[in-house]
């Protein structure tokens, strides 16, 4: 067991991030106490992408906000409305069962949470207490959160501004665990043994086993599950009832899938530091890229995740003096996936043939104009510590059409079979499917491609296992946890039929999840990747793309976050430098 490497004492600019729970879950094997009490000292720990803890100041560039794209030295101005774009759809108002509600809308505006993840442009990770005044880990199986004193909910029925109590978190965790529609409850089912509230200010999690990724964006920091705080009175009607939380903003007005308007909540625990700076946050839901561009150019929105590099170039050229164009390597993985429960993908020779004819560089070149990177192994390039050496993996990715054909012939592949490949309808996904179709055609493999709407794809294909292949961009993950878990027999996810499902590798994955020593875990994760490649796993990343975010120059202290599909998370420190 490695020692805890919690770092404290790095003074950060005043913000609600009073304590940074650095790499706690990743490195912790002994009790660790994050700065608590006194003046709520400004302590920080961060990890260079999901692992090695190091002082926040060195990773985050000293005094600036982690990942702040336009960190200013000016005093922030309060007020104004920040409008953003999102190309998303939701079915209900429930942040637990709707990914977009949880990770982009209410989950990061209206509802608070115990802890969250921040990443800077280099994907260095910070774990930031939000509603937690302190975090203790007396042993690897126990985590104790103390709530900030005086927290209260927004003044709306049925909560009416009452105090936040620890039992709300207990009830929320039970709700997430018991709800079959929860987007991700891997923490609650796989890791959490129990959660209790010894008193109104204390929440105690007992874990079934040590959790290497405990505070990561897929566990306690996961905005749509993790440690979200929802008033218990509203849990039985979250789909439809007015959203009430204790986060920085309160719901003011909305038209589902059209527009959401949030107004500052003065009772927010960061209000004493003036947070959030912007009076209002508005989300405009515009799916059409051309309409998005028009909305940005006309300043109807001030922040826009630009969908393709060429558009970013054009917009930057046209508006260069008036906007900032941020770009960073996204942690979002874009993957090919084949169902090993179905022939021919249960035959390793067919899978190897697929590796032989797959040219991952072509995906990057054609879809992203070459802007991004192809990982040497199986994990996103941004997860730097876990990357394999290209020399270790070159043999797996070698292109050889002749050998691919021989392998298919040896496997008795039926060339009349139409491989049915589906995806969530979108430019990146649709192009990727066409590229696979074309590459497969080089060896005589026929591929039929079907783009679908997300809900249709999820319900008809993913949840039922009635799929043969898919190509899709994923949400972004700040650790190897989800990718590796999706390879396992039990994924604890909606993607039950994904990955290789090899019992030997299952055991390796489980062991790595429980290994708190960073160096040991890094080696284990590398070994797992090689083991998966040896068996030609049917689930791998084609590339990681460079993401672009356009901001009007008066948008200050915008927080770049490679682990949030280009959308910032809380961003309470963002402000408008205009009259």
């Amino acid at each position, binding site marked *: 067991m490695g020692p805890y490497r919690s770092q404290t004492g790095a003074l950060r600019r005043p913000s609600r991030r009073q304590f940074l729970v650095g790499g706690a879950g990743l490195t912790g094997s002994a009790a660790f106490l994050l700065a608590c009490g006194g003046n709520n000292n400004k302590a920080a720990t961060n990890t260079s992408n999901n692992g090695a803890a190091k002082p926040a100041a060195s990773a985050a560039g000293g005094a600036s906000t982690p990942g702040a794209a336009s960190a200013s030295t000016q005093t922030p101005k309060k007020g104004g409305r920040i409008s953003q774009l999102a190309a998303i759809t939701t079915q209900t108002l429930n942040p637990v069962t709707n990914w977009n509600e949880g990770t982009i809308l209410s989950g990061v505006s209206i509802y608070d949470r115990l802890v969250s993840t921040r990443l800077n442009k280099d994907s260095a990770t910070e774990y930031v207490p939000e509603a937690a005044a302190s975090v203790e880990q007396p042993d690897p199986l126990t985590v104790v959160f103390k709530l900030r004193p005086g927290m209260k909910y927004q003044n709306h029925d049925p909560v009416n501004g009452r105090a936040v109590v620890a039992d709300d978190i207990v009830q929320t965790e039970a709700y997430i665990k018991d709800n079959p529609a929860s987007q991700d409850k891997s923490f609650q089912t796989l890791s959490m043994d129990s959660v209790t509230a010894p008193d109104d200010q204390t929440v105690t999690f007992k874990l079934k086993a040590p959790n290497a990724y405990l505070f990561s964006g897929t566990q306690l920091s996961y905005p749509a599950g993790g440690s979200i705080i929802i008033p218990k009175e509203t849990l039985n009607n979250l789909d439809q009832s007015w959203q009430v939380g204790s986060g920085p903003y309160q719901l003011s007005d909305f038209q589902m899938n059209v527009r959401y308007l949030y107004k500052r909540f003065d009772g927010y625990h960061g209000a004493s530091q003036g947070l959030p700076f912007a009076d209002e946050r508005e989300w405009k839901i515009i799916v059409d*890229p*051309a309409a998005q561009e028009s909305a940005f150019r006309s300043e109807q929105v001030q922040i826009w995740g630009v*969908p*393709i590099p*060429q*558009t970013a170039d*054009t917009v930057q050229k046209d508006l260069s003096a008036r906007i900032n164009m941020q770009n960073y390597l996204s942690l979002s993985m874009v993957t090919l996936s084949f169902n090993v429960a179905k022939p021919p993908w249960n035959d390793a020779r067919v899978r190897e043939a697929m590796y032989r004819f797959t040219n991952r560089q*072509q995906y990057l*070149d*054609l879809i992203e*104009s070459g802007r991004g990177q192809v990982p040497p192994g199986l994990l996103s390039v941004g997860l730097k510590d876990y990357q394999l050496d290209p020399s270790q993996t070159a043999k797996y990715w070698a292109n050889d059409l002749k050998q691919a054909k021989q392998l298919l012939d040896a496997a008795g592949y039926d060339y009349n079979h*139409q491989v*049915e490949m589906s995806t969530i*309808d979108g*430019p990146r996904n*649709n*192009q990727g*499917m*066409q*590229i696979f*179709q*074309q590459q497969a*055609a080089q060896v005589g493999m*026929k*591929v*039929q*491609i*079907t*783009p*679908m709407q997300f809900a249709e794809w999820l319900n008809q294909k993913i949840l039922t296992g009635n799929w043969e292949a898919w190509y899709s961009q994923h949400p972004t993950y700040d650790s190897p946890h989800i990718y590796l878990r999706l390879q396992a027999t039990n994924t604890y996810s909606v993607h039950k039929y994904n990955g290789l499902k090899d019992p030997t590798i299952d055991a390796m994955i489980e062991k790595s999840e429980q290994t708190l020593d960073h160096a040991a875990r890094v080696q284990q994760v590398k070994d797992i990747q090689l083991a998966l490649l040896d068996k030609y796993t049917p689930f791998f990343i084609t590339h990681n793309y460079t993401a672009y975010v356009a901001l009007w120059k008066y948008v200050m202290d915008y927080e770049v976050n490679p682990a949030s599909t280009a959308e910032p998370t809380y961003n309470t420190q963002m402000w408008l430098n205009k009259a």
Partner: protein
Amino acid sequence: MASATEAVVLGTRAESSDSRHLRRILGIVRRQPLGVFGAIVCVAFVVVAFAAPLITPHDPHIFVGPRLGRPSYAFPFGTNNLGQDVLARTIYGAQVSLVVGVASVLLGTVVGSALGLVAAYCGGWVDSAVQRALEVVASFPGLMLILVVVAALSRPRVARDVNLLTLTWELRVVVIAVGIGFIFATTRIVRSVALTERHAPYVEAAIACGAGWARIMWRHLLPNVMAYIIVGVSVTLGLAILAEASLSFLGYGVPPGTPAWGTDLSGINRQFFLQAPWLVLAPGGAISLTLLGFNFLGDALRDELDPRLRGR
């Protein structure tokens, strides 16, 4: 001798018949130059669709050229974001338009004509039932009706390199969705004409001779409404092609990757229009030209076949 004379007489008759046809055609050409232009476009459209594999310089699926390559000798219409030949895709796109256009109009015409004849001949509650049912269908906006049908029956899947028959089968959902929209219009036209013909002396005579209802409709009424049906077909073919293109443009038609004019105007291509305008010019031009052709042809046929307009 008699037979020789007969042959001479018959020959003269045949000759005069041929020259009559020729004169008539020349007359049509003089009267309907735009109609002739439309007919040429339509014939060219059909030929291009059938001969696509023979006349395309490249496979429309293969990444043969540079990304977003400008029009050049090698790629007269340029290349798209994946390096596919836009000319090849435009030529192959005619297949989808032809298949959906012809099949859906056939569906709408056959069903609509049958319903129109039955409603007109039977009258009474049958007529009312048919009319009310179709009015319900017609109360939906056209494109919405198509979207509803596609959503209910699921979007089509299209394999690569299939022949036109297979393509028709794979696009059956689109064909049904577009075809349903034409049933109402065809039924109304056929019914209104058949209602007049229903009481014509030749129909009364057929009834008096004991002809059954099916025979009367098939042998007597249908030939007399055929001119209207033909005019309707020529007009609706263009509309069907436009409907398919609209459906594909909205992402509910053929899947991405399949060469189709509507699909190639949408999706990722839309994001390159400013940088690569040839992406929109080729499929957009093809749609416009084909529609223009069918409209001109339809107008000309109406002028020639509609007795009310004949001689104007």
